[in-house]
């Protein structure tokens, strides 16, 4: 169902998804968050590129880098979507990491043939802002926040 733009202004959606540390869940979490963005008439490129790719990167880092696929650890994804912007928090149960220490230019000739290391680069390229802070409250962990203004 297409969103009717005249009614967007009043609609505000919050979504929380909790998953085990298993990459098999990523695609569905992406779908769950993309859907309200589609209802709110986010632009086709944001729906097909920015949102799914950046989200998939943040969730897979939480599962693989922070939680080390530990089946006892979980990933919490919270999204707030309205007609202005999408804010997604991806929370893991891992050790703190320094996001500013991880600014690698994936397009540098030295890096271009690397298999890994494009995750944060893509999040930064595809979102308006990418931040990291400590989860407040149990369980401890990182929160990676992605912010995208609706286009």
């Amino acid at each position, binding site marked *: 169902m297409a969103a009717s733009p005249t009614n967007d202004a009043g609609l505000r959606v919050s979504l929380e998804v909790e998953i085990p540390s298993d990459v098999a869940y990523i695609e569905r979490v992406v779908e769950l968050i993309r859907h309200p963005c589609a209802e709110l008439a986010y632009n086709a490129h944001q729906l097909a590129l920015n949102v799914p*790719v950046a989200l998939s990167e943040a969730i897979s880092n939480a599962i693989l880098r922070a939680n080390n696929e530990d089946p006892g650890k979980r990933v919490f994804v919270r999204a707030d979507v309205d007609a202005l912007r999408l804010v997604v928090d991806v929370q893991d149960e891992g050790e703190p990491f320094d996001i500013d220490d991880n600014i690698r230019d*994936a*397009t540098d000739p030295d890096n*271009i043939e690397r298999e890994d290391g494009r995750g944060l680069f893509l999040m930064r390229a595809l979102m308006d802002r990418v931040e990291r802070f400590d989860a407040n409250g149990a369980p401890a962990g990182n929160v990676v926040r992605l912010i995208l203004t609706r286009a």
Partner: protein
Amino acid sequence: MSFTIKKEGEIVVVDVEGQLIVGNRQELKQKVLDELERGEKKFLIDFAQTGYIDSSGLGVLVSLSKKIREQGGELRLANLNDDLKTLFELTKLDTLFQISDTRDRALASF
């Protein structure tokens, strides 16, 4: 999500249906490496039916391209939609791969 492999003449053509992401990239890698081991040299990956690709999907394409080159083979890509093109441009991977607009053009380019 699935990967369909068929032969067109001496070219191995892989269709990526759905996403190419961390959850399934190993499957693509293994399928292509199996063909490479069987002695195949020419590979085309067709993205006409692909949704999105994440960094680990891109990573698999980079590493396959290296492995194929090492065996004296070639990997080409076809049918990137606008959003996938943007993804390759952002990462400058459009400079690493030979990319064709259509499958026929890609097949003819080998």
